[in-house]
């Protein structure tokens, strides 16, 4: 049995499906394709792929419904493909259990990065009791979870408890986008609407850890959706 990861592409546009599968094949993934929601669901069930790339605009059913259906019975990572300007759709998909999204049009590197992150997170899932790492480093940014210490270029950064909570949450899901609602719920608890507070905290975090808050390196904004902590610095 070869060790290639299997990616299911649910996409009705032949051209896009072709080019995605070409990229993936070239990068040592095994690819299966479905061109409708129904086929996609049944193929997800029969092949049990390592990751699903789901286009939200499908001819036979709403992509969101496909996602709901899949999430009823499996935790296979799902990366949603959606167009720019459909931010609400993305947020909805993420809140319904999609692991990540990618905006059309996308480049090769972006696609591969999303897929890598998606598969890695699911491996963590499957691993179950894998001990959480005691530290995390991205570029010059470092978190020591045991000491509850955050530092940039070796200098310790003083964070408030809330700020620390946000950073830890993002780092636990490093590479994944977290919606505003998700972060708020995790940090402040349910039944609150602290989007303003989240923005203020995020601005403060950036001023503490980023060189220029208008050009953040570590925590990037996904306008209209949420925040993401990057796994590796862009060159």
């Amino acid at each position, binding site marked *: 049995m070869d060790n290639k990861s299997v990616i299911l592409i649910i996409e009705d546009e032949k051209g896009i499906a072709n080019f995605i599968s070409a990229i993936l094949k070239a990068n040592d993934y095994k690819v299966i394709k479905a061109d409708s929601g129904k086929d996609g669901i049944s193929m997800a069930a029969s092949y049990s792929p390592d990751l699903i790339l789901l286009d939200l605009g499908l001819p036979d059913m709403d992509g969101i419904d496909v996602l709901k259906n899949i999430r009823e019975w499996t935790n296979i990572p799902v990366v949603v493909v959606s167009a*720019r*300007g459909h*931010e609400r759709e993305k947020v909805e998909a993420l809140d319904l259990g999609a692991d990540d999204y990618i905006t059309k*049009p996308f*480049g090769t590197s972006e696609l591969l990065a999303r897929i890598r992150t998606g598969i890695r997170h699911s491996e963590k899932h499957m691993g179950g009791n894998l001990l959480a790492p005691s530290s995390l480093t991205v570029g010059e940014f470092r978190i020591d979870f045991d000491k509850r210490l955050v530092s940039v270029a070796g200098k310790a950064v003083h964070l408030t408890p809330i700020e620390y909570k946000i950073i830890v949450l993002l780092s636990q899901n490093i590479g994944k986008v977290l919606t505003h609602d998700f972060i708020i719920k995790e940090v402040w608890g349910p039944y609150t*609407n602290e*989007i*303003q507070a989240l*923005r*203020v905290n*995020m*601005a*403060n975090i*950036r*001023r503490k850890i980023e060189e*220029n*808050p*208008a*050009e*953040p390196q570590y925590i*990037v*904004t*996904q*306008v*209209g959706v949420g925040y993401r902590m990057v796994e590796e610095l862009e060159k």
Partner: protein
Amino acid sequence: MVDLRDMRPNPDDILEDLFGNEKNRKGRLEIFFGYAAGVGKTYAMLDDAQEQIKCGVDVLVGYIEQHTRPETIELMAGLPILPPKIVEYRKIQLNEFDLDAALKRKPELVLVDELAHTNAPGMRNKKRYQDIEELLNAGIDVFTTLNVQHLESLNDIVQNITRINVQETIPDKLFNEADKVRLIDIEPDELLRRFENGKIYRPERTEKALEHFFTKENLRLLREIATRKAANRISHDNQNEPRLSQKMANIKLLVCISASPSSAKCIRWTERTAEAFRAPWTAVYVETMESDSLTDLEKRSIRENLALAERLGAEIVTLNGYDVATVIAEYAKLSGITNIVIGKSRNRKTIGNLFKPSLEDKLITLLSSIEIHIIPGNVVANKNTLSKRKRIRIGQNLFWSWQDGLKTLGLLIGSTLLSLLLQSLNISDQNIIMVYILSVLIISRVTTGYLYGIIASGLTVLIFNYFFTVPYYTLHAIQEGYPITFIIMLLVALITSALTVRIKTQARLAVEREHRTEVLYEINKKLLASADLQSTITLINDYMAQIFGRSAIFYAQDPMENITPTFLQSPLDSDASFLLSEDERAVAHWVFMNKKSAGAGTDTLMGAGAFYMPIVSQGKVLGVIGLSCSNGNLSQNNRLFLRIITSQLEMALERHYLSNEQRRASIESEKEKLRSNLLRGISHDLRTPLTGILGASSAILENGTALDKETQDTLVANIKEDAQWLIRMVENLLSVTRINEGPMNVRKTPEAAEEIVAEAISRIRKRFSSRKITVKVPNELLLVPMDGTLIEQVIINLLENAVKHSPERSTIEVDVRKTKNQAVFEVSDQGSGISDQDYPYLFESYVPDGKRSTDSSRGMGIGLSICKSIVNAHNGKIEAENKKNGGAIFRFTLPLEGSEDNG
């Protein structure tokens, strides 16, 4: 190049669409028409329905009478049947057509038997034909059955033939406007045979019916009427209408309505005649001073007669005046009436009326050129009411009041004293007579009614006789001339008193009329002055409460669309907050949908607490007005007045709607212009990269091996570049579609300015990784209400513009600042700056040919114009200028307030 102008929607089409949505398709009505029960209408109807269902029409049997014969029942096999609604009335269970269920089910075709049926009390509509009108309005086709005796206009004729008073009638309008009428006809002999076999009624009823109705002669006559009616319909359909109406244009009928029951006969006669000539007709009711003294019964019968005339399609006019004939004659002359119809009852010729010329005589005298039709009335019916009315009239004019009595007495004593004085001065009898006549005149003037005038007339004669004729202080008159003097004096006194009373009454009527005209004028003036819809509505409610003393409610839209109606509680009325209840709203909704009055005092939804009237203009309901009826229903007069007011209101509302419509249309056309300019602007730009992609890709596909690796890579790189350009263009275009609904549609949420800037810069960096961009943001977090995606697009466009127009190694600066109440975003470059030639067109989407600078021939030609649209939609400002030390600076500001959502 495709001429895009042709693709622009025609503004007329847009308007058409706006109206078109409201104009629902009306259902078609097909009537199966027969001359008596048992001719086979229901059978034919079901037969046809079977045919329809075979053609795939969604048929529903709404209601079929219970006494239907077995053969007919058999025909219902296979048709879906709506279960009847069971209504309990006086402990009897009645089956009724379930209108709401039918409307809910919404089939294409509904079968409802017996058009003329009267619904059980408690149903929404009084009559079944109203149910059917609702079905038609809902766009459902209807098959129904009808017998000739149920037609309103033929009602009296049939009654004459059969001697049976048919209570259930339907307005002729329904019959005339039906899309199809199918005459179901069989020989009377055959019908009688069916009848005797008990096929029509159950045996116990058969005998009774046979005696009264089903005689061969009756049937033959009914058949004739029915056939003729159907034939009339056909001949109308076939005739060349415009020519006919031209020819008959000069005929206009007028029917006079009184409280007499024979009026109904006149109305029906007039309707038939008008129908035959296709002429318009008017029903006139003249209010005289007698009108106040009518009994309730008479008032009701006048109301009913007016309602009947209205149902039959007459124009209703109420006139005021002392003399009926004069008033009618005046009206007829003014409105070009050619024929007048009046009813005449024989019992009018009482002794009292012997010398009074009859109405028709007076009319003939006054109007020599107008034809007068006299319809004989029913003799017996109104004898009672007439004498009753007389009693009341006498009662009213001859009532006694001590105050007036004292006045009379005082004046008589005064004039007697004056006369005694005159006599002592030896002034002659004639002058004394004058003094007395003067006193009678004054008495008539200052008292109410005829009584004092008459008493005074008698008394003056007696007093004159007693004091001033020889022998004095007796009632004897010796001189020969005196009896004549007495008689003349009495007559003069009587006539003067009668005249004075009449003048007073007329003055009162005139004042009333004057008041109404004044109110109307005032309303009209205020309506014209009112600037917007809401003030118009408030104004009308005020007037309603003021004029009618009732609480008023006004719906400017469909009451079911969760709008808040304008409600006004009148101080004179009892608590009318029930008008706001759900039930009343439903009634108003019905009125809105059916374009008909309903509620208290009407035939529809009479259980409602208020009277509702739609305001209809050109087939479109502009609003519904409701008047509380908790203190009694509206009188016919009030309703007429209300109608006049609503017609004023109609115009005012229409004016508002039209101006709104116009505004919307002009906005629409403005938007359209913008869009088409935009399309024209980019269509050229789009073709260039597409040609490039097509060429490069086909070059690779067709000459794959022949090309060296380097050339291939270049071609592929070109494709990528062009495609990226196209994507950016499309994203810009999508931004435009997001804002083209106008400023109100930008969804603003507070966003951190730095995050938006960062996102934009990171996207630009991906494309132009070699360019140096510096960013400055304020130290404080700056939250700006905006649509993040759109503002990001603005920044991207500005950055891209800067990248394009500045040298490769120079720096682009982005600066975000906060001023007092706005956020300022600046993008500056170190390029050549903006040329004077370009400056005026910088933010225009379409630049006149030849004036466009070369480097934008395939640049972001529309980028800046989109920036402008987006910033404007945020109520911000965008501007550009050249820096002193070279390079251009683009600056836009966004207001910090006005966020719709602070959450």
